[in-house]
């Protein structure tokens, strides 16, 4: 492809020779030749700025991989979960059967906060926004027939992330699979729960401690697993702007790296296993710029603030979900187009995995038909649009580069302000971050209410269609009975001993993952674990 034996004449030639060619040799590309319908050949990269680093080069503005989607498409990972482990398993198989390439588990609120399905706090909430998982048997049923060593599994779980990871490791062992081969992610980003999502159970300090336990255990024992996904998605959904989304997410990332450093962990190892999660919202070009800016700013932070010299540890790899709050309940079919445009922004921004929302999600959990269209939208982008043939196709555009610079500068300034307030945790506890997000949410609402930004197809008295999804009303009772049987079949002394050991390890400040794994193997439930941890750490007391 490139002439050899003489020095490269252009930056593109240098990048092709030094960066792209070795990566292509390692990973291959999907085609021998990429070309348009007219037979115009497409280079992997187009370069206008002679000084800019290329894809795969620090600070990764143009992407973390030199070959990007020419080698491998993003992982298509639809978030799903409801009702019961068995029903969710059916939805998983449906999605995998239609070409989805990774799983993403939505848990119900009791599971996320640490209550079993038969707990009084769980009344009315079981199986509503996700699948209930109280025991190792529940996870086994959820992942029945799914090869843990082959399909990557992402779990949106935070307060109880360590428990779900323990379930997963125990399940691998039960099935005779080496946990080292597990691939996937636990969200494990508790700070943004305090900021925007609201499933925190323990106070801030022990919550961060638990998060670091999970990171420490996974970096030592699960080489293919991402133990944290630092999330801006929910911060954006709560009303933040694109700049605020980047700033607050990276500020959380800084707090986790600081906590890991305090624990004595190797930041190169941690950096290599960190991942991120962003929103793809409406403003097409700003969103593309946002992803590029986030990559550059994070890489710079890793190198400058944490003195991480390993480039791979400075790469911001991320999952994207299209913006749920942009969907309208009125004329829901229009949402298919919103989702497609947002998904395209994520792809042009270089996402590693993607969830596309279903068009009916402003009404209820998605119907099977809408879930299929959402997945198909990704496949159309991937296989039909040709946007996957060139790496960072918009890079070098004066408009995109200028927006990228502006988003980065804005986020950098906000992070400096958080530093002045004593860092991320202080800015969360002092209410600074929440106040900023609320002010932005209010501005956005005023713009909508005044007619300046009213979504298409929405009017004051238009009909809202009936919800496509209804939860089986017997779910809660069925779960309660099953848990009663599960508890009765256990050895009560072993259960008590395991809880005593968990409490001891927590009080001693040890990493609790080993005692969690033993506990779930002998049948201790998620709710029992959480209440043991509450006796040690106490509970988070409201934010009103």
């Amino acid at each position: 492809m490139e002439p050899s034996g003489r020095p490269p004449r252009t930056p593109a030639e240098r990048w092709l020779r030094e960066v792209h060619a070795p990566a292509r040799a390692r990973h291959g590309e999907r085609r021998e030749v990429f070309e348009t319908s007219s037979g115009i050949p497409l280079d992997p990269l187009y370069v206008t700025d002679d000084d800019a680093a290329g894809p795969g080069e620090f600070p990764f503005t143009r992407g973390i991989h030199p070959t990007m989607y020419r080698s491998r498409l993003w992982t298509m990972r639809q978030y799903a979960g409801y009702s019961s482990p068995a029903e969710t398993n059916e939805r998983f198989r449906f999605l995998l059967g239609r070409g989805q390439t990774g799983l993403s588990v939505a848990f119900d609120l009791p599971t996320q906060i640490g209550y079993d399905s038969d707990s009084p706090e769980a009344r009315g909430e079981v199986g509503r926004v996700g699948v209930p998982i109280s025991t190792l048997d529940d996870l086994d049923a959820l992942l029945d027939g799914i090869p843990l060593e082959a399909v990557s599994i992402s779990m949106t779980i935070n307060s109880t992330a360590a428990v779900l990871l323990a379930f997963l490791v125990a399940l691998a062992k039960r099935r005779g699979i080496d946990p080292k081969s597990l691939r996937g992610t636990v969200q494990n980003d508790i700070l943004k729960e305090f900021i925007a999502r609201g499933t925190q159970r323990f106070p801030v300090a022990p919550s961060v401690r638990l998060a670091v336990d999970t990171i420490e255990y996974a970096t030592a024992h699960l080489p293919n697993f991402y133990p944290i996904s630092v999330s801006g998605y929910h911060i954006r959904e709560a009303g933040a702007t694109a700049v605020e989304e980047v700033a607050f997410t990276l500020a959380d990332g800084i707090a986790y790296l600081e906590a890991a450093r305090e624990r004595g962990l190797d930041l190169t190892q941690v950096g290599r296993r960190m991942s991120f999660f962003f929103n793809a919202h409406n403003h097409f070009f700003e969103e593309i710029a946002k992803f590029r800016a986030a990559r550059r700013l994070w890489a710079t932070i890793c190198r400058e603030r944490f003195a991480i010299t390993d480039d791979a540890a400075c790469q911001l790899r991320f999952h994207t979900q299209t913006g749920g709050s942009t969907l309208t309940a009125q004329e829901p079919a229009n949402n298919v187009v919103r989702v497609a445009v947002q998904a395209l922004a994520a792809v042009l921004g270089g996402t590693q995995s993607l969830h596309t929302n279903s068009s009916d999600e402003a009404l209820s959990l998605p119907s099977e038909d809408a879930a299929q269209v959402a997945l198909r939208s990704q496949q159309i982008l991937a296989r039909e649009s040709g946007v996957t043939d060139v790496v960072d196709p918009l890079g070098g555009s004066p408009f995109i580069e200028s927006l990228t610079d502006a988003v980065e500068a804005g986020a950098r300034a906000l992070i400096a302000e958080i530093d002045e307030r004593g860092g991320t945790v202080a800015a969360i506890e002092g209410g600074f971050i929440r106040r900023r997000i609320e002010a932005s949410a209010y501005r956005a609402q005023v713009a909508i209410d005044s007619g300046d930004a009213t979504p298409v197809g929405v009017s004051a008295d238009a009909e809202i269609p009936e919800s496509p999804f209804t939860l089986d009303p017997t779910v809660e009772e069925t779960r309660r009975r099953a848990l009663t049987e599960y508890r009765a079949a256990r050895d009560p002394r072993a259960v008590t001993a395991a809880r005593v050991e968990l409490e001891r390890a927590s009080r001693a400040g040890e990493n609790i993952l080993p005692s969690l794994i033993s506990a779930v193997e002998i049948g201790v439930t998620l709710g029992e674990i959480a209440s043991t941890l509450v006796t040690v750490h106490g509970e988070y007391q409201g934010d009103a």
Partner: protein
Amino acid sequence: MPEKRTGPIRVLLAKPGLDGHDRGIRLVLRALRDAGMEVIYTGLRATPEGIVKAALAEDVEAIGLSSLSGAHEQHFRRVSELLAEAGAEEIVLFGGGIIPRKDAESLRTAGFSMLYPPGTPLEKIVTDLRAQLRPDDGSAP
């Protein structure tokens, strides 16, 4: 017939259950306060018992509940029952969130006269509350 109240409208806003989505309720909080109402907000994970207790202690005229987790049937209905038990049916109930149409119809019979889906203009909530609680103020500037 309860005596006619004057002065600022007093409202309790609450998030019953485990749902953490509070963007909407915080916007409503701000809009009602900007409109001159006195508003108390419970924060996340309020119980129906706690909500009714706070409503009585704070002598509010209206309670607004928000739920986007699908647990509205359980929690909204319980608040309405507890209010009836306390003999405080005159307190106006309203709610917001992702509430399917058929649930909205059944909640209306439980006393939720106003249910606001996502996307409702804030001004509409303010206007509805004023119309219901201070109907005679309509002509005032």
